[in-house]
């Protein structure tokens, strides 16, 4: 069982854990205290390089390092990693299939007070459109540690979405983690809720409320956005006939879109998306923002009731 911790902290600690492997190089763009790569720097300073506020160069340097046999972890905020350096990730890293792990922290609106310029709600969409990109969005301490170890063992380009906010552990006991294989948190028969990242915690809260109201929810942690777990989605559609997706991301291009694509082509059913409704964020506390942009447990409850005709 994990601790109450931000996923970015779990990332930093895991880097130290796997850091004895001399092939690992960590790059950061002047945010190492925030992304938590400073933890690796303290233990392995000779393999941590600060690339300054120059994310584009950082991604292509990461690619060059990877050609020499290195396993490169490159970190910045999701905004600057996935958007500023999008074309470098596409052309320098993904196209040549180089072994670089872009681990982007401060994703979504729960960045909070920094406001819309720093609240990346598009990164999953950007990364999903790149051929062959692996995209992970773990929800808590334990699954983040496993996600980082999984991308370390996987040979090829990966994007890991990490959050700023301290979050509760979701799992009481250790769960199996495999890239592309979702985790069934709880089975149910009326509706399936598929959540990713820190929305898993909200979905868990929503499920408890819905259970009291007599709605049986199948709850899935979709930690891998790409390749998406088609089998679990098709089964959810066939078994429950209704799906609600939950993501701290624009409802265009993210988890909801990925699930809808699978559903449309394989097992049509109604899909409702809980997420940011194609709007920019603003300054505020994470809790205030989640309420304002309608991505709380209550919003999930509301969507589930709507789709169930209740």
């Amino acid at each position, binding site marked *: 069982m994990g601790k109450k911790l931000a996923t970015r902290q779990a990332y930093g600690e895991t880097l130290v854990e796997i850091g004895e492997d001399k092939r690992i*190089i960590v790059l950061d763009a002047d945010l190492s205290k925030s992304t938590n790569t400073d933890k690796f720097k303290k233990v392995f300073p*000779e*393999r941590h*390089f600060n*690339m*300054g506020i*120059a994310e*584009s*160069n950082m*991604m*292509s*340097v*990461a*690619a*060059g*390092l*990877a*050609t*020499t*046999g*290195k396993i490169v972890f490159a970190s910045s905020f999701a905004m600057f990693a996935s958007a500023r350096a999008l*074309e*470098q990730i596409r*052309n*320098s890293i993904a*196209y*040549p*299939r180089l072994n670089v792990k872009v681990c982007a922290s401060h994703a979504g609106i729960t960045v909070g007070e920094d406001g819309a310029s720093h609240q990346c709600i598009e990164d999953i969409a950007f990364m999903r459109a790149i051929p062959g990109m692996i995209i992970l969005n773990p929800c808590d301490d334990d699954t983040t540690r496993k996600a980082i170890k999984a991308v370390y063992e996987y040979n090829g380009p990966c994007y890991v979405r990490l959050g700023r906010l301290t979050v509760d552990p979701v799992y009481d006991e250790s769960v199996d983690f495999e890239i592309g294989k979702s985790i069934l948190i709880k089975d149910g028969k009326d509706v399936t809720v598929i959540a990713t990242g820190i929305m898993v915690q909200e979905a868990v809260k929503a499920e408890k409320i819905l259970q009291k109201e007599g709605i049986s929810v199948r709850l899935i942690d979709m930690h891998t956005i790409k390749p998406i777990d088609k089998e679990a989605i098709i089964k959810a559609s066939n078994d429950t006939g209704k799906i609600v997706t939950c993501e701290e991301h624009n409802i265009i291009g993210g988890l909801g879109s990925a699930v809808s694509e699978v559903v449309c082509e394989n097992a049509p059913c109604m899909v409702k998306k809980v997420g940011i409704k194609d709007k920019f964020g603003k300054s505020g506390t994470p809790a205030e923002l989640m309420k304002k942009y309608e991505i709380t447990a209550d919003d999930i409850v509301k969507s589930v009731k709507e789709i169930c005709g209740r």
Partner: protein
Amino acid sequence: MIDHNQEKELKIIASRMRKHIIESVYSAKSGHPGGSLSCTEIIASIYFNLINVDPENPKWEDRDRFVLSKGHCAPALYAALAIKGFFPEEDIKTLRKIDSYLEGHPNMNSVPGVDMSTGSLGQGISAAVGMALGAKVDGKQYRVYALLGDGELQEGQVWEAAMSAAHYRLDNLIAFVDYNGLQIDGKITDVMSPVPIDEKFRAFGWDVKTIDGHDFKQIIATVENRIKETEKADIKKPFAIICETVKGKGISFMEGKAEWHGTAPKEEQKNMAIKEIEDRIKELEGC
């Protein structure tokens, strides 16, 4: 230093490369002859004198690296790699064709001898910085050579890369700039001037030398002297060689013309160009 005979051999190789460039771009009906012809001597110097690579073992860990940051000049790189023996010379004519492994821009996963996939300007030099940094981390002695276009210097990422190379004291990195003065839309100084190029690199912490980019003696001596200097003194700086060149060099009707940046020759033009090159080879072999 190279002697007269070595220089003659290199000149013949350069002419053979030019023939491949013209024939491949003609066969593809598209591509970039102008810049490929301006950097021919630079790439020939690298592959046939300076670089330590093994065509039998293209991924050899301790090899020197070359990154064609101006990836659109793939025809020149492919010509050098084929003549060097990385793949058959007859394959060059398949450039840009649907079943060919010779992409319009270099692909490290399909073309033997290509160290980095490039094409999007500004990114190759950063990858070269990563390779040079990798050598330092591992305590390896290999060098990394990169070739930039002068128009490419308009990409901001080039200067991010330049800053990081100097910051990490990458004396194992040597970047050539193919200073032919022209880009697609015209003169670089009219489109968006990057001059003075030498002073910019110096300001970013590099050592710089400007030479004639078609003179084998100068190109090779400049690199050899630099390597000697860095072995003797504690310099620890990356090195930029600004190569003054002529776009379309070696084909009289293409020289100095921006319109040959990305245009394939028609059959008659191709035949004229090939004749010019073949006459030069005969002349060189005769002397």
